[in-house]
């Protein structure tokens, strides 16, 4: 088609820009780093304010302080003792980190799920009861499935009714706590005969300086990283959380992406439920409520935004590590219980404020 046929009158301002202006302008391609060092520098520069970098520095400083203190006072502050390291680094951090990855991915999609703790308890009970009465691989699948289904029900409620996820999942939290008591009774579900050696090796094995949970965290963390930062579906999670209408405008279906995020969240909750159930050999209904806010706190500390669109897998793991390490330090220093809550609470608020501050400086 020629220009004449389309109405004419292109003489007003036809050329995109004067030629010399286009050619003398500094080209973007010229500033792309070519050396290895340059690329590392550029990547570091564009990591600022994304959550992972700042919190890792904070964590590094705290870790260094703990190590130095432990070296100076090995008796009164046994942070570096093998039992402490395997308990903290290998057990309590991975469990929270896995939950934080689930909660974090959901937060990036712009939602959160307050029934995490209740779903965790319910899935653990499903796992224990099925392991006691049959095969544990089946119980494992059933635990994952029940957590995923619970999360998807929450997701459907949020997506279809457009009730804020805060309210919808708060309501469902009470429901699933009640459901746990309904199927199990108020006495703890105990994993005794069904706790086979192989099961323990896989989910709660103690291999000296590391435990199974750490392996789970590394493997699942790596998968989550590839999914969120490198897979197209991960890219869409950010898009939907960051600006749903922009995502919709390019043909992404926000509801489908949100449901997928709820499903992934459920998978994480189910896996963690099994890890906890095997380690503790039991589950008392209604005792897992704390995990909900700890997981969300770990994600926020790690740089996830409560309004969606921001967060990194690395940040979520470091956020979980920071909370658990500070908690451990306080326990080692023999601080009374309420001090622990006080300091953990303070850490969460300070870290979240720091992230918010750095967010504005992100390039």
């Amino acid at each position, binding site marked *: *088609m020629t*220009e004449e*046929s*389309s*109405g*004419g*009158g*292109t003489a*007003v*301002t*036809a*050329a*995109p*820009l004067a030629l010399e*202006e*286009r050619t003398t*302008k500094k*080209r*973007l*391609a010229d*500033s*792309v780093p070519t050396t290895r060092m340059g690329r590392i520098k*550029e*990547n570091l520069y*564009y990591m600022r304010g994304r959550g992972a970098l700042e919190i890792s520095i904070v964590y590094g400083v705290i870790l260094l302080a703990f190590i130095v203190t432990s070296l100076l006072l090995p008796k009164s502050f046994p942070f570096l003792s093998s039992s402490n390291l395997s308990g903290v680094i290998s057990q309590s951090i991975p469990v929270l980190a896995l939950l934080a990855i689930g909660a974090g991915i959901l937060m990036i999609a712009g939602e959160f799920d307050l029934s995490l703790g209740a779903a965790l308890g319910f899935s653990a009970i499903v796992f224990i009861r099925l392991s006691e009465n049959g095969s544990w691989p089946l119980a494992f699948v059933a635990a994952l499935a029940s957590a995923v289904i619970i999360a998807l029900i929450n997701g459907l409620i949020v997506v279809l009714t457009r009730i804020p996820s805060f309210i919808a999942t708060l309501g469902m939290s009470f429901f699933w706590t009640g459901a746990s008591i309904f199927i199990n009774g108020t006495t703890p579900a105990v994993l005794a005969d069904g706790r086979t050696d192989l099961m323990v090796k896989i989910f709660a094995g103690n291999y000296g300086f590391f435990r199974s949970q750490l392996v789970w965290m590394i493997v699942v963390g790596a998968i989550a990283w*590839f999914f969120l930062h*490198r*897979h*197209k*579906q991960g*890219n*869409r999670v*950010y*898009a939907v*959380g*960051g*600006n749903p*209408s*922009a*995502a*919709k*405008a*390019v*043909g*992404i*279906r926000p509801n489908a992406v949100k449901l997928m995020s709820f499903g992934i969240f459920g998978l994480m909750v189910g896996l963690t439920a099994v890890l906890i159930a095997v380690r503790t050999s039991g589950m008392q209904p209604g005792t897992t409520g704390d995990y909900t806010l700890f997981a969300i706190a770990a994600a926020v500390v790690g740089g996830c*935004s409560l309004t969606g*669109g*921001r967060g990194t897998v690395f940040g979520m793991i470091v956020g979980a590590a920071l909370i658990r390490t500070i908690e451990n330090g306080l326990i080692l220093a023999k601080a009374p219980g309420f001090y622990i809550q006080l300091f953990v609470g303070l850490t969460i608020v300070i870290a979240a404020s720091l992230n918010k501050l750095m967010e504005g400086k*992100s*390039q």
Partner: protein
Amino acid sequence: MTATTQEVPRTAVQDTPLLRLENVTKNYGPNTVLKDVSFSVGKGEVVGLLGDNGAGKSTLVKIMSGTVAMSSGEYFWDGEPLEKVTRPETERLGVETIFQDSALVPSMSITRNIFMGREITNGAGFMKMKEMDALTTDILDSVVSIEGIKSAKQLVGSLSGGQAQAVAIARAVHFKRSLLILDEPTSALAVRATEALLNYLLALKAEGVSSVLVTHNLHHAFKVCDRHIVMNHGKKILDVTRGETTVEELTAAVVEGAEGVRRYREGKPLA
């Protein structure tokens, strides 16, 4: 010519129009926001959609882009009726809407924004980041020239309004969209950025891309549009080509509606 301005002659676009809407009506509960609106966008045509706040422009834009369903009416694409007017469907046809500030995700990098929903991936769906970054650099350097952008890895949230608009347009150009709908694109822009944006539209037109420019600024519209459609209280009151109208007539139509056009054509000054 009679007093009514409803039936101003159509433009002389001979080909089948790219997009044609027939008798589109949209009700929100008891409120009718669009009433029997019909118009078309020719291939390679720049159409100005003008009107005061509440005239129904935004609803019309949403219907064209498939994000809002019409209550009644028909949607023709290249002469063929479109059965289901949904966003995935219009996306497939190549309709791209650039809203003032919601076409992009501020918390994502330029690269990720440009390839959002159309990622370059391997067979398993993993993104080829290096390839996408390199392509983005290339797009930013060639398709539109944007000053002040440092890297394809920069967050869109750290760009100025004009830079972000240009990125959104660059994306549309790169993916060879056939119809670009720009909703108030110049309202947040500095003079220079506006000038650049209007120039992009003309450059696109030369490549056969149609666009609909929704704006308050009649001078901007007059500068680039081949045809002007003026909306007033949910109705189309004027549909004229560039040669048939003046900025004064458009002003009268936008400010005073059909009455203003009639008065203008009778040679009476604005009230």
